[in-house]
């Protein structure tokens, strides 16, 4: 039944396409994006429309998947002989994509203007082994968001500058009976948990790998997990954080149910939109805190890039599209949910307008971005760490034992 409907629809579409296709030859490229955090689906569609208007000989077919499906969908399409010309990729994948030849090396296509104009930190998003596999597009890290009204009610003068202070302030809010669980995190068994963990690892001065071997089970890596467990068991963290993704955290924060939340850039303007948010106008944002004697601020590199697949037959058109999407003009125009990769944009009053606080936090946070490990076996390592985090939170294992198990399961 479903099949026949599909066939009918396909038939109708083909017929439609045949009847209404423009007279001139058109190159069709397929692009894969995500519908989660950063630019919204509507933004990407609007940008693409502007591109096709300027380039009527190219049409772009857009597809959106949740972040969780992005990697597997890209790899599967490649395994079955392609399908996408342009794919969005996370900062943690270039090592694997380059090793398995999923993406095309575009080092030679990058112009001197791009080289000098884009923030140096942004380039790490697309680099592996000295080569560049695309253009950075989403420059993002996790910031500490806070609810100004709640902090004021609790008599807290300034947002925390250390993680210990965050725990204290949350306890004050809890003890005063303002909120039962003032902090929300995205600790679901997913990559989101690793981003929160990495932020803490950077604060505690830890490292994931040393000489290619796991090093997260001691020092800063262990301290980071211990902090998560303490925050969870002491009752200042919303216990449902262990099944939250970023969007769950955003809903809770927008509803005024938490005082503190770690989340990406996109939450700032969404939580400040009175149409959807109960906390509009009360949203504060600062770089994620540091650890006394170890760091002033902390940040995870959560940037993403746009690349051309090695199976693409329209590499030139694909690059044209990527150039347009990552151009300073496009990025400045859509700077509300994701900040530009271009250095000079941060001093552009038009970009900063209405989000001065976010820009101020970004200037500090983006400079402190800490990378997740660069290894072709990243997916295995991440899966092992996700398990360690969840087992520790649930009390099934002590943090040190859980991380030791993660070392065994990491495949490194």
């Amino acid at each position: 039944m479903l099949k026949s409907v599909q066939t009918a629809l396909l038939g109708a579409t083909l017929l439609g396409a045949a009847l209404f296709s423009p007279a001139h030859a058109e190159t069709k490229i397929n692009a894969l994006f995500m519908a989660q955090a950063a630019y919204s689906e509507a933004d990407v569609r609007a940008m693409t429309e502007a591109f096709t208007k300027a380039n009527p000989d190219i049409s772009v077919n857009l597809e959106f998947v949740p972040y969780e499906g992005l990697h597997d969908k890209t790899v599967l399409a490649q395994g079955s002989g392609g399908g996408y010309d342009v794919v969005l990729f996370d900062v943690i994948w270039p090592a694997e994509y380059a090793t398995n030849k999923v993406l095309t090396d575009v080092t030679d296509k990058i112009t001197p203007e791009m080289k000098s104009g884009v923030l140096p930190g942004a380039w790490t998003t697309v680099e592996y082994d000295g080569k560049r596999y695309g253009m950075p597009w989403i420059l993002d890290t996790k910031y500490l968001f806070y609810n100004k009204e709640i902090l004021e009610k609790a008599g807290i003068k300034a947002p925390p500058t250390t993680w210990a202070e965050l725990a204290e302030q949350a306890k004050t809010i809890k003890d005063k009976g303002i909120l039962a669980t003032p902090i929300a995190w995205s600790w679901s068994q997913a990559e989101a948990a690793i981003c929160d963990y990495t932020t803490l690892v950077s604060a505690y001065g830890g490292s994931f790998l040393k000489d290619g071997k796991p090093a997260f089970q001691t020092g800063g890596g262990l301290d980071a997990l211990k902090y998560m467990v303490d925050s969870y068991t002491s009752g200042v963290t919303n216990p449902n954080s262990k099944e939250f993704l970023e969007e769950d955290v955003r809903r809770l924060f927008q509803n005024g149910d938490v005082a503190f939340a770690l989340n990406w850039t996109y939450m700032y303007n969404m939580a400040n939109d009175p149409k959807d948010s109960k906390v509009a106008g009360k949203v504060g944002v600062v770089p994620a805190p540091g650890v006394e004697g170890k760091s002033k601020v902390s940040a995870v590199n959560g940037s993403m890039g746009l690349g051309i697949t090695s199976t693409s037959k329209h590499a030139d058109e694909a690059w044209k599209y990527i150039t347009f999407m990552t151009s300073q003009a496009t990025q400045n125009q859509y700077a509300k949910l994701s900040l530009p990769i271009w250095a000079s944009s941060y001093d552009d009053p038009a970009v900063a307008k209405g989000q001065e606080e976010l820009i101020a936090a970004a200037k500090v946070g983006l400079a402190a971005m800490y990378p997740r490990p660069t290894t072709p076996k990243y997916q295995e390592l991440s899966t092992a760490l996700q398990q360690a985090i969840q087992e520790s939170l649930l009390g099934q294992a002590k943090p040190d034992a859980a991380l030791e198990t993660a070392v065994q399961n990491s495949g490194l």
Partner: protein
Amino acid sequence: MTNNWITTRAWFLMLPLLIVMVAIIGWPLFDTVRLSFTDAKLVGTAGNFVGFENYVRILSGPNFQRTLITTFWFAVLSVSAEMVIGVLAALLLNQQFYGRSVLRALMILPWALPTVVNATLWRLIYNPEYGALNAALTQMGIIGAYQSWLGEPGTALASLIVADCWKNFPLVALIALAALQAVPRDITAAAMVDGAGAWSRFRFVIMPYLAGPLMVALVLRTIEAFKVFDIIWVMTRGGPANSTRTLSILVYQEAFSFQRAGSGASLALIVTLLVTILAVAYAALIRKSAGVS
């Protein structure tokens, strides 16, 4: 006409179907078997022959045993609940009452929903902050505070089983309802006259008519439940702390997330083998209960 000619004609008529089946089932299966003895990656390398290494590594690894147990519990509990609820629903819908045909049609709805839609719905119902289940249970005073149904290892699998039951019991009910139409009214009436109670009438008069068709439902549902993937992937992705990770999710991770096509293939074949054993055992049971040797 000779027997020989009938056999030849039968094979001849089946030939087009057989060709298609070999092409779309036989060849991929053969290729999976070949892959399972290599260290092939999903993209890039074709892989070298490694013998039984993949099988040994998977069967002796810590993940396999745990996921097998999770899968076993999921299959046993969800299928038994579906059988019981399905038969009860069928008995109810077999009664004469006003609005019966509307209810019969409505019952199909959960089964007709795509699994992904069903899983998303249940995720919302189980939401720890805004979920309908939490609201209903606290308002009725059954639980004191909102619970994290999918975030606690103790309740995550059970919550998944409930969601799976809601979707799949209509299939069992439908099959049972069809079978109930074959029960002659005069026999149930005669049993009633003879003083048989409700249970005895069900056990000795109706059950023999239901046994065969229910066996078919049991086979279908067990095989499906053993291969479960989508509902869990959407609702928990195997979490919390891998407490709902089933065999199919392990296959997916191995083959697609970690891109080890070789060992993913061997794991998939192990699952296939387990399901085949189940199917053969059931088939034998059906033959026995139907009295055919």
